[in-house]
C-alpha cells in the first residue's frame, strides 16, 4: 500500500536493537566500534538528506523554467510566474484569498469531520458483526461507484443552494473512502492477537477496545487520509458548480472574466492547502502507528 511505500526506509535503521541482551553484554570492547559505525551511518544519512533536498530544489527550478517557457511560447493569455505572484499578493492583501480559503476549509472540515466520525463506527460495526456487513456493504459498493460530484445536481434540487448540499457531498466523499478502509482494518486484524487476548482472560469489550481498535488504527488513518483528499477534491468541484464563495467559486468567476492569473492563484492555493493537510495527517499517522513492523 501507499503508506508502506512512503516510509519503508526507517524500519531497519542501523541503530535498531536486534541483538540478544546476553550477547550485547558479553561484548564490552565493541562499544567504540558501534559508535564509529553509528557516526558513519549518521554521516551517510546526512549526505542522503542533502542530496534529496538538492534534488527537490532542482525539481522546483525545473518546474519554474517549464512554466516560464510555456508563458513565452505564445499561448493566448498564459500568465508567467511574475504576474501570478503579483495577483496572488493583491488577492491576499484584499483579503479575498483568505476569505475564499476560509469558506472552502469550513465546508471541507464540516463535511469531513461528520463523514469520518460516522465512518469509523460504521466500519467497526461492519467488521465486527457479519450481519451489519451484509446489510450495508452492497450499498457501500454501489455508492462508491457514483462520484460524489454526480450527486450535486440532486442535492441542490433537494437541499437548496445553501451550504447544505456542498457539505453533504463532501460528507459523502469522506465517509465512503473512510468506511471502507476502517472495515478492511477490522477484518484484517490478526486472529492470533484476538486469541492471545482471550486466553489472557479478555472479554468481548476488552478484545474490541484493547485489540481490534488499536490493531486496525493504521487502516483507519490511511482511510482518513484518502478521505481528506477526496473531500478536498470534492469541495473545489462543488464550488465550481454552485457557490457564492470559496476557491472554486473564485476560479469560476475568473473564468468568466478571462482572468488567468487569478485562476492560477486559486490552483496553487488548492494544491498547497491539500498538500499541507495530507502531510499533517501523515505526521499524525507516523506518530500514532509507529509501532508497526514494516516490511
Amino acid at each position, binding site marked *: 500500500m501507499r503508506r508502506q511505500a512512503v516510509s519503508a526506509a526507517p*524500519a531497519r535503521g542501523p541503530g*535498531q*536493537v*536486534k*541483538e*540478544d*541482551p*546476553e550477547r*550485547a553484554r558479553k561484548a564490552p570492547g565493541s562499544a567504540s566500534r558501534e559508535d564509529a559505525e553509528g557516526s558513519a551511518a549518521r554521516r551517510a544519512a546526512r549526505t542522503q538528506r542533502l542530496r534529496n533536498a538538492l534534488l527537490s530544489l532542482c525539481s522546483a527550478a525545473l518546474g519554474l523554467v517549464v512554466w516560464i517557457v510555456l508563458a513565452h511560447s505564445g499561448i493566448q493569455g498564459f500568465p508567467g510566474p511574475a504576474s501570478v505572484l503579483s495577483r496572488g499578493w493583491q488577492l491576499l492583501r484584499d483579503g479575498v484569498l483568505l476569505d475564499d480559503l476560509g469558506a472552502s476549509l469550513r465546508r471541507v472540515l464540516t463535511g469531513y469531520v461528520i463523514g469520518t466520525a460516522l465512518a469509523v463506527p460504521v466500519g467497526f460495526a461492519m467488521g465486527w458483526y457479519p450481519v451489519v456487513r451484509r446489510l450495508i456493504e452492497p450499498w457501500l459498493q454501489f455508492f462508491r461507484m457514483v462520484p460524489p460530484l454526480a450527486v450535486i445536481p440532486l442535492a441542490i434540487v433537494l437541499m437548496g443552494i445553501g451550504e447544505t448540499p456542498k457539505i453533504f457531498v463532501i460528507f459523502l466523499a469522506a465517509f465512503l473512502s473512510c468506511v471502507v478502509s476502517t472495515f478492511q482494518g477490522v477484518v484484517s486484524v*490478526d486472529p*492470533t*492477537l484476538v*486469541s*492471545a*487476548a*482471550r*486466553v*489472557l*482472560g*479478555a472479554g468481548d469489550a*476488552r478484545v474490541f477496545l*484493547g*485489540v481490534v481498535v*488499536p*490493531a486496525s*488504527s493504521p487502516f483507519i488513518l490511511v482511510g482518513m487520509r484518502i478521505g481528506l483528499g477526496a473531500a478536498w477534491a470534492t469541495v473545489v468541484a462543488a464550488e465550481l458548480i454552485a457557490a457564492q464563495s470559496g476557491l472554486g467559486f473564485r476560479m469560476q468567476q475568473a473564468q468568466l472574466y478571462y482572468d488567468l492569473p487569478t485562476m492560477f492563484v486559486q490552483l496553487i492555493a488548492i494544491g498547497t492547502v491539500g498538500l499541507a493537510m495530507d502531510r499533517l495527517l501523515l505526521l499524525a499517522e507516523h506518530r500514532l*502507528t509507529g*509501532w*508497526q*513492523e514494516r516490511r
Partner: protein
Amino acid sequence: MPSIEFNEVRRDFGSRAGGFLALDGVSLTIEDGEFVTVVGPSGCGKSTLLNVAAGLLDATAGSVTVDGEEVRGPSPERGVIFQQYALFPWMTVSQNVEFGLKVAGVGRAERRAAARRVIDMVGLADFADALPKTLSGGMKQRCAIARAYAVDPKVLLMDEPFGALDALTRVRMQDALLETWSRDRRTVMFITHDVDEAVYLASRVVVMAARPGRIHRIVPVDLPYPRTEEMRLSAEFADLRRQVWNAVYHQPSTLEGNSS
C-alpha cells in the same frame, strides 16, 4: 492437581465437500507437573488438540478437563504460547506482559512488580520499554512466555513456540524453558514438529497420526532432568529419537490396520 485430561475428544470441521475429521477419539492424560510434547505430521490435528485444551475451539464430542474442571472457553488458567508470538505490536514489552494482569484487575503497582519479575526471568530486563518490532524472534518469544507466566497459569499450552526460530536460538530457548520449568514444574503441553526437540524436552512424547487426527504412539522418555548437551549426544537419546522418528514418519497413512 493441575493435570490435563482429554476424554474421547472429537472435532470435525464441517465443509460443503463433507466434513473433515481433525480429531477422533483422542484420550490422553497429562499428569500434574509433567512435560509432554506432541509431534506428528502436518494435518494430524496436534494444533487443533491444543486449541481445544485452550478453549479456543470447542470439541465436537468428548471433553477436556484441566485440574478437574471442564474446559469451556479460554481462561487465564491455561496459558497459551503461539508460534507467531502474538505480541501486541503497539505495546512495549512490559505493557504486553502486564496485559493479562490488567484484565484481571490487578492494581498498577502490583502489576509493575509482577511484570518486572517475569521479564527478569526471561532475561528481557533491558528491553522492558522496547516495542516488539525492535526485538529479534527469540526475544519476542521470550516476551510472549513472560506474558503467559505473568498471570500464573495452572498449565502451559505451547503451540510450536520455537518453530519460527533459527536452530541455535531454538536450542537456547529449549534450555531456558527447561530451566524455568524445572523451578516450578508447571504442567506443559508442547506441540512441535521437531523430533529432536520433542525428545529433548519431554518426559513423554505423544506421536499423532493424521486422517483422522489420533494418537498413534506414546514414547516415554526415561532420561533424567536436567537435560544436558551430553544427553543430547548420548546413545539413549539417539535410540529414543529413532523410535519417535519411526513413529512419526513411518506410520500408516490411512485408517487401514488401525483400530478406531
